[in-house]
Each structure stands twice: as structure tokens, then as C-alpha cells.
């Protein structure tokens, strides 16, 4: 098995002098600063020679004190080895620019666009640096830089323009007014680029083609995003995605909140998976703090997170089934009733139904109630029997078969290449689960299978989710048998200030690989929190997946991803 130190020595011998300040945190984590000129080659070498075939994202960091910008490329492997390489590339703050990795990894596109629009770091050779999450009028203000003064910028009074409206209110606008342009006082040259509409319309090649809008408000997903498809007759020729409708800037908000307060914001990224988000953030902070979690707390965390996975899969599947209506309304009702039981179980522990804020640094908030195990003994077998019946029900339904089998097929190779995450990836037969790859808590002691599909079509994706529920139930049963008594919080008080350091922590969210990159500068607030969300990665893969399918299948394919745009936008 490859370890981080082996990867490092291999890199050092292949690129002498290009790898600076390497740090082998553990067998599975490698940190290094790479010469900006060599980053493309280093990544290529990692992929070709060392099996790093999973580009997991990148994070921008503004080191304003050093007058530098940094991009951290997160490289991992789809199951060949557990090493995650965090490669940092520095660039001067005045004219930040680094090499784009889009030539190597298809899915680098969105990550780089996001860094560009948030930090103003240019990516050389990126073919489509268009705004992704931000609205057009925020372009050029680089909101995630540390010297960003807010929107509108009232401290200088230069960029924000107050315009009195007809009904007596004041509107603040960032774009230059005509008067400003005439007077030549426009503070900054704004980047020019075609808008989303212009970009998609440029693709219309003949009169027989047209663009169909699905969204931003569409029954397809429980949140707003715009999916435009270019159709020719019954076939989709191209898909376009516009996201950012509910961009909340959570990463930036967390920089302005204390470490503890940050937990409550992770809930709101994706309320269906809020426990995994809690876990991810707390785990990262625990890593920096070097906190040990008491064993009982670890078990409690596993139990509630698996319960949360069950309820997430139930609602994800149920909701999806309503989309392919005619098949789905009855199962949706069944699933939502079943989910209610699971939610009640979680609620009895955490005290909240969706936004739990339950995990704490080094522990959990509440202990399990006394009758929890008994309640589980009633609920879990019931859910199990129901899931088995659902599986059977879908297996025998001919309409379901017609709509789902061989629709939206994603072969394993493509799935890896486009960086799709979670059950959608596993449905293609790639066994990639963070609980195994990057084991946390007590997962290594537990016995469970990673559920995979064979074909990677819509039916497989649903099937994988349903069978994962059974696996989660099995995990919870083991936990309930083994859970020791003991403290649920660390003995010493968790300090308000976190020592300087950084950590990258991954958990298996119900939607796939979720990672958080947390940097502390020793203060009482995070210096930077980067969320690598699973649905962000999955959503990006939609357009290529939709190419060539029938219009009627678009909703089936997009819905089978179990989306949460709230988490993609953050």
C-alpha cells in the first residue's frame, strides 16, 4: 500500500527542488508546497505514476500578511491508496495567476472558476473563466479576499453607488453609473465575459434547436438551480448549469464567527445531511486541536450519522420517485412516513429534527436517552422490512423498469473521470466510500460492506441507496451492541482559541465525499474554511451526462443524483 512518505520521496526524486516544506501528517495525508511552474507536471506525475486519479477539488487562501495568494490542490485516489496530497501553490497577491489543471482533470473547471471569482486568482489556460456562484455585479470585488470590506463597500464609498429609487428607498449598486464612466472615475476595470444566456445561445447552431429551461424553481430538486438544455427534437444536445441562486457565503461567514459558532453554520449547508456536516467540521477542528474523542461519543456520532444517512436516502429516493410520477407517488408517501420514525429517533438524541448542531469539539452535545436502544429495536427492523419491500417493489414494476433501466448510464471510467461522488459513483461499480478510505471514529472496528452497483444507470443509483440503508441499519445495530459507557465530552475544557495549524478531514456524507479544509491562525476564529461538498462535484457532471438523452429522461437522470443545491452553493 502506498503511504504519504512514499509518495513524497517519489515526488522529490522526480522533481528535485520543486517540493518545498513537505509535511507528512499521517500515512494518509501529505502536505507540500509546489513550485508554481511545476504544479501541472507534478499533478500529471501523480496521476500517471502514483494512481492519484481523483482530483478532489481545490481551495483558495488569501495570505494577506505575506502578500500572497495560495491555491491548495486536493489530490486523492479512487480506492488505489488512501493518501490525500494537499499541494499548495503560491502566487503573488498583486497579480495572482497559476496554471490551470483543467487540461488534466475535467472536474477542475468549477473549482477553479469558484476560486477565480472569489479571490481573483487567474487560471492560465482555463478556457471558460466565467462567474459560477456570484452574480454578475459582484464580479471584480473578489469577496473572499481578506481585505474585502463588505457589500456594498461603505468604507471607501467608491465601489458602491447609492441610487435613490422612485419609491423613496436607496439602492446600492456596485457597477459604475453612466456618470462615473463619463467622468472616468470607475475604480477598477471590470472583467468582461459573455453572460450565461449569451453563452448558451451561442451554442444554438440551427433553427431546429431550442433551449428549454428547467429551473431555477423546479420540482426536480429541493432547491434552486437552473438547468438549461439545448434540445434538437426529442434529444438533448447539451446541458448548461447555472448555480449560485442560494449562495450563502458560508465559508466567509465562518471566518467571522468563533470556532464554536461555526458548527451552527455547517448545519445550514445541507439540512438533510447536517450531522455529517457537523462531523466534518468538528473532526477537522479536533485534528488541529489534537483532541481525542471519548469512545462513547464516537459511537453516538456513528449512530446518529448513520440514522441521518437513512433518513437522507429515504427522502432522496422518495422525492426522486415523485419525479417519475405514475410510479412514484405511493412510495414517496411510504418513505416519508418511514423517515418520520427515523427522524423521531434522531430527534430524541439531538433535540432537533433537521438542523442538529449536535457534534461538539471532542464529543457530542447529549447522551443517548435511556430508552434509545429499545426504540431502535422497534424502528430498525421495521425500516429494514420496509426497505426490503421497496427493493422488491421496484424490481417487479415494469413501468419503473422502463423509465429507469439503462437510462443515464455512467460507466465506471467516466464516473471516475468526471469526479462524481457518493452513491452515484458507487452505482457505477467504483467502491469508494470515505468510511473505508479515510476511516474516522469507530468505523474501522465496524463490519460493513460498501454497496456498489454494476451498470451505473438510474435504477442502480436508487438500488445502491436503498441497500445502503440496510447496511446503515446493520452498522447501528453493531454500535448499539458495543457502545461502552463513559464520558461523552472531553474532560478538559475545549479552548476558545485553536492553535495555528491546518487540517483536511473527510466524511462520507449521504451524498458522497465531503471534505473540509480548515486553517487556524491561532485565533478564536477560523482563518479559512473550505468546504468540498459532494453535490458540488455531482452537479458538475450533469451536463455531460445529459448529452444525447431524451428530454423525458432529463428529470429522471438529474433527480437520481439526489441533489442538494443548497450544499453545492453553500
Amino acid at each position, binding site marked *: 500500500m502506498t503511504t504519504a512518505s512514499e509518495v513524497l520521496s517519489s515526488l522529490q526524486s522526480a522533481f528535485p527542488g520543486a517540493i518545498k516544506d513537505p509535511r507528512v501528517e499521517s500515512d494518509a495525508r501529505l502536505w507540500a508546497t509546489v513550485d508554481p511552474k511545476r504544479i501541472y507536471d507534478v499533478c500529471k506525475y501523480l496521476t500517471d505514476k502514483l494512481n492519484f486519479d481523483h482530483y478532489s477539488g481545490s481551495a483558495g487562501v488569501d495570505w494577506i500578511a505575506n502578500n500572497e495568494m495560495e491555491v491548495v490542490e486536493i489530490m486523492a485516489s479512487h480506492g488505489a491508496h488512501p493518501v490525500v496530497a494537499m499541494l499548495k501553490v503560491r502566487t503573488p497577491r498583486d497579480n495572482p495567476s497559476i496554471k490551470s489543471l483543467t487540461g488534466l482533470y475535467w472536474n477542475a473547471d468549477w473549482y477553479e472558476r469558484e476560486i477565480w471569482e472569489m479571490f481573483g486568482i487567474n487560471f492560465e489556460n482555463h478556457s471558460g473563466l466565467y462567474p459560477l456562484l456570484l452574480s454578475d455585479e459582484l464580479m471584480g470585488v473578489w469577496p473572499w479576499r481578506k481585505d474585502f470590506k463588505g457589500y456594498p463597500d461603505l468604507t471607501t464609498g467608491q465601489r458602491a453607488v447609492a441610487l435613490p429609487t422612485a419609491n423613496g428607498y436607496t439602492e446600492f449598486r456596485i457597477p459604475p453609473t453612466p456618470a462615473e464612466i463619463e467622468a472616468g472615475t470607475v475604480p477598477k476595470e471590470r472583467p468582461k465575459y459573455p453572460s450565461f444566456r449569451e453563452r448558451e445561445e451561442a451554442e444554438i447552431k440551427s433553427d431546429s434547436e431550442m433551449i428549454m429551461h428547467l429551473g431555477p424553481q423546479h420540482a426536480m430538486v429541493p432547491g434552486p438551480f437552473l438547468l438549461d438544455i439545448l434540445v434538437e427534437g426529442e434529444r438533448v444536445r447539451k446541458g448548461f448549469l447555472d448555480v449560485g441562486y442560494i449562495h450563502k457565503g458560508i465559508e466567509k461567514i465562518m471566518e467571522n464567527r468563533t470556532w464554536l459558532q461555526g458548527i451552527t*453554520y455547517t448545519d445550514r449547508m445541507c439540512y438533510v445531511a447536517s450531522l455529517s456536516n457537523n462531523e466534518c467540521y468538528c473532526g477537522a477542528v479536533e485534528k488541529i486541536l489534537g483532541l481525542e474523542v471519548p469512545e462513547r461519543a464516537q459511537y453516538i456520532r456513528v449512530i446518529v450519522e448513520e440514522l441521518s444517512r437513512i433518513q437522507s436516502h429515504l427522502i432522496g429516493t422518495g422525492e426522486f420517485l415523485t419525479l417519475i410520477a405514475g410510479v412514484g407517488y405511493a412510495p414517496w408517501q411510504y418513505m416519508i*412516513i418511514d423517515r418520520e420514525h427515523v427522524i423521531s429517533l434522531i430527534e430524541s438524541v439531538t433535540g432537533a429534527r433537521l438542523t442538529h448542531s449536535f457534534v461538539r469539539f471532542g464529543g457530542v452535545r447529549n447522551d443517548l*436517552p435511556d430508552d434509545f436502544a429499545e426504540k431502535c429495536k422497534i424502528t430498525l427492523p421495521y425500516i429494514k422490512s420496509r426497505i426490503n419491500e421497496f427493493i422488491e417493489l421496484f424490481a417487479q414494476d415494469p413501468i419503473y423498469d422502463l423509465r429507469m433501466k439503462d437510462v443515464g448510464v455512467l460507466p465506471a471510467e467516466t464516473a471516475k473521470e468526471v469526479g462524481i461522488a457518493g452513491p452515484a459513483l458507487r452505482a457505477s461499480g467504483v467502491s469508494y466510500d470515505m468510511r473505508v478510505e479515510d476511516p474516522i471514529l469507530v468505523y474501522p472496528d465496524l463490519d460493513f460492506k460498501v454497496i456498489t452497483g454494476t451498470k451505473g444507470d438510474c435504477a442502480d443509483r436508487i438500488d445502491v441507496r436503498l441497500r445502503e440503508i440496510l447496511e446503515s441499519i446493520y452498522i447501528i445495530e453493531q454500535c448499539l451492541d458495543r457502545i461502552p459507557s463513559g464520558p461523552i465530552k472531553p474532560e478538559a475544557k475545549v479552548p476558545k482559541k485553536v492553535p495555528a495549524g491546518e487540517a483536511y478531514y473527510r466524511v462520507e456524507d449521504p451524498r458522497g465525499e465531503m471534505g473540509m479544509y480548515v486553517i487556524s491562525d491561532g485565533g478564536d476564529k477560523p482563518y479559512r474554511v473550505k468546504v468540498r461538498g459532494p453535490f458540488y462535484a455531482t452537479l458538475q457532471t450533469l451536463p455531460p451526462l445529459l448529452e444525447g438523452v431524451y428530454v423525458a429522461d432529463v428529470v429522471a437522470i438529474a433527480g437520481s443524483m439526489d441533489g442538494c443545491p443548497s450544499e453545492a452553493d453553500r
Partner: protein
Amino acid sequence: MLKKKMIKNFTWPLKVATHGVESTRLYPEVMMELPAAERGIHELDATTCIGCGSCARVCPNSCIEMVPYKYGNPLKNKKMQFPQIDYGRCMFCGLCVDECPVECLKMGKNVVMTGWEREDIVKGPGDIAARKHSAKEVAEFEAEAKRIAAEKAAAKKAAAKEGAAKKAPAKAAGEKAPKKAEGANDKSKNGGAS
């Protein structure tokens, strides 16, 4: 084969119907059963709150404001400042509860909150205070508060008359905040001392 499947399709709803699954909640008539851990509207024990303001500082949404309130315990809470919570902003995260050093702030099972105006869901200490004493206890507390006030007054008078002639056997907290103590004299339903 198909026949078998069809029979199964009919038995499925029957099975569900006989499973005894609670599928409809009779909500306004019957409130669902909430667990002990439920994080609902706060309950303040005004008799033990020390007015430290930790809850207000930790709240991520700054929805807690410390406001004056008469029916607390002046012996513990010298400034008589108690949390007032703006439920328009509160997200029921429970951080304030965790942070309270004397564990006087709790979150209860009451989750119903209605109002016509925004101000209706800004709940002052009087609205969220949960500790209630019986009439007898209240009388006792009043007497106690009166006694302390009287002792203090006596001590004050004595001190004014001659420097160190007489030492009032007053309680430790009787030295300061004499005026506030009188406030606790009012028909306090939450009690004065504890």
C-alpha cells in the same frame, strides 16, 4: 409469474395498513410527543441566573440581549439583567444553553410560537422564565427579602450613626445593591432569594 406479482401488489397496501403505522398526525388537537432532549423555546430559571451574559456572547445570531427584569434574585444577579431572546432570529441551536455557567437556561418542549407582530416573538425574561413558586413560597421569599432589606437599612443607619458600633449579621450579599433588593420586594412570583 405476472399473476403472482399482481397479487403481491395488492397485498402490499394491505400489509402497510395492518402494520399499525401512525401515518397521520392530528396536529393541532393532539400535539406529537416530544423527547426530553427537545430544543424548543427557552426556559429561564430567573431565580438562579447570574446575569453573566455568556449566553448573549455565544449566540451566533446575536439574538440575546440582556435586559432589566424585576423578578430575579438580586443576591446573585447584581445588575438584574436577564436574557431576552428574539425568536425572529433564533435558530434553536442550543449554544446559549451549553454555555450557561449555572445551567439556568434550558430549552423546553414548547415549540409553538405565534404572533401578529414581529415584537410578539421577542420574548423577554418574563415570558421565558419558567421557575414558579407556590403562593406560600412567594410569601416566604418576600419576608426574607424584607428581612434582608430591613437588616440592611438598620446596618446602614447604624453605620451612619457611629462608625463601628454595631455589626449587622447581614448576609454576605447584603453589602451592596440595597436598592435592587427592594425591587425584589414586589409581589415577586419568581422569588427573591433561594
